[in-house]
């Protein structure tokens, strides 16, 4: 007689009115494959845990975003925010779609050059740019977004020694009605600092002021904040036109659109709470079109969208190490991935799906990572089916920031696989090994023997 498939016995109290408080409908379907590739097969081939990126989802999402803006405004340019995910293969998918590069460090700048991005299609942001890096950016005709006065003076000095004229924008921070206000980057709009910096640039006449930039925050759930920001930047641009007879070539609205993740503490699931590209596009484009630019003077609209373009395309596959019962009766499941590689679990309640069929019976479960640290919690409370050791799971919407902010802590960082448009997997970053760490260490001679 064939035996019945085993599932561990579970029992759960029913709380009238509170049923399914934590579970979401979609978490109750197994995800056994990603773009035609069986999860079990991917793990066998590349190991667990494993990041998987869907090229199809990237391109579809990019085209959706691009369409939302291009159908509302005549001149639109995306610039891929490298810090969101700078694995070269991922960057080149965006570049192939037409995205420029937006970088915030010398390291990211080198990556963009390595990927073949022409210098004049690299936007150089951020507070930390060395004189050497600025010089290279000037020689490459890159767009330098000035963050502070020290940087402005450095560029001014460099400009007098170089033949190329620096092409610059200033980063502007402002009150858009959203708290907390990001006022640590760039020059403030309301107190006149921004206009002051603009006057300095124009009057020194050592560089070309080609754009205005802002990045008002990240995971912004209110499109109206963008309407305010676009209006304020447009006012600045028009006043420069009036005062200095100089047209601003572009307005760069930065990034910050929300992805479909669920923020911690949010009652609604991310997919229901996050505005779509159309709503952001409507807010921004309407403000620009109504700002009073004369015909033919409309600036190019640049967008540095990061997470909203890549989050959905990324998955983390992992396996169950063990199950435990906590003293308060809750189930604890320990996974082979934790906050070391899933940094975003500090902000989001990531959706996690089992990768094999399971019954509808669930238990309130805490999902822990494998680190010997108390902070290593992936989900504090999730209605989760009874998984056993070695069962596999798929964590959703992890494409943004994890593959750049991951930590090499007590274990190696996992491999990353890109599934192409024809469902073929490609290894795009190897699993690290002990040499990835040891190669950088130097042992002084007198410590070579551990003397034990």
């Amino acid at each position: 007689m064939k035996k019945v498939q085993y599932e561990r016995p579970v029992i759960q109290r029913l709380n009238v009115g509170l049923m399914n408080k934590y579970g979401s409908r979609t978490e109750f379907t197994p995800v056994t494959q990603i773009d035609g590739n069986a999860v079990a097969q991917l793990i066998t081939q590349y190991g667990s845990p494993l990041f998987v990126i869907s090229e199809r989802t990237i391109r579809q999402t990019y085209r959706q975003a691009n369409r939302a803006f291009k159908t509302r405004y005549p001149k639109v340019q995306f610039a891929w925010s490298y810090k969101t995910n700078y694995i070269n293969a991922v960057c080149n998918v965006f570049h192939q779609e037409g995205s420029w590069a937006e970088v915030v460090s010398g390291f990211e700048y080198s990556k963009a050059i390595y990927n073949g991005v022409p210098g004049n299609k690299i936007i150089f942001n951020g507070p930390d740019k060395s004189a050497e890096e600025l010089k290279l950016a000037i020689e490459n005709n890159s767009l330098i977004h000035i963050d502070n006065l020290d940087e402005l003076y450095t560029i001014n000095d460099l400009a007098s020694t170089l033949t190329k004229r620096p092409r610059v924008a200033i980063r502007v921070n402002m009150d858009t009605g959203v708290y907390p206000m990001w006022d640590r980057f760039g020059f403030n709009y309301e107190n006149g600092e921004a206009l002051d910096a603009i006057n300095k640039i124009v009057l020194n006449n050592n560089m070309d002021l080609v754009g205005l930039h802002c990045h008002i925050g990240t995971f912004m759930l209110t499109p109206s904040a963008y309407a305010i920001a676009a209006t304020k930047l447009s006012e600045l641009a028009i006043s420069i036109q009036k005062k200095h007879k100089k047209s601003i070539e572009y307005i760069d609205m930065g990034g910050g659109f929300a992805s479909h993740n669920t923020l911690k503490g949010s009652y609604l699931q991310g997919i229901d709470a996050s505005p779509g590209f159309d709503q952001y596009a409507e807010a921004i484009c309407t403000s620009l079109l109504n700002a009073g630019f004369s015909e033919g003077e409309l600036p190019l609209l640049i967008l540095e969208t990061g997470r909203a373009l890549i989050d959905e395309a990324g998955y983390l596959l992992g396996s169950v190490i063990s199950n435990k019962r906590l003293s308060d009766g809750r189930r604890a499941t320990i996974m082979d991935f934790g906050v070391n590689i899933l940094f975003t679990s500090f902000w989001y309640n990531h959706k996690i799906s089992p990768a094999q069929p399971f019954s509808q019976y669930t238990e309130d479960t805490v999902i822990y990572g494998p680190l010997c640290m108390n902070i290593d919690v992936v989900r504090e409370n999730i209605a989760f089916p009874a998984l056993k050791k070695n069962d596999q799971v798929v964590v959703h919407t992890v494409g943004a920031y994890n593959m750049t902010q991951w930590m090499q802590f007590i274990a190696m960082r996992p491999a990353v696989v890109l599934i192409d448009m024809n469902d073929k997997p490609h290894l795009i970053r190897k699993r690290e090994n002990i040499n990835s760490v040891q190669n950088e260490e130097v042992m002084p001679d007198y410590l070579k023997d551990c003397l034990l």
Partner: protein
Amino acid sequence: MKLKKNIALSDTGFVFDPSNGNSFSTNPIGLEIIQLLKQNKTQSEIETKILSTYEVDKNTFEKDYYDFVNMLGKLKLNAADEKD
């Protein structure tokens, strides 16, 4: 482990404790174990029954059984919590 005498079970895995009005849901194997416990079966009798029916090894089931019985205690379904 002895269960409270008067708890009610439905075929669909619905468990009701009339002494305090609490209700619970359990999966099919959990229901089977509760039924066996209600019939005053011993742990080894239950184990023999489950191992012959399900695709599971002794170690795995033993671990899960202890955990389950422990939960029944936490949910106050054991006879020790019964007040006469």
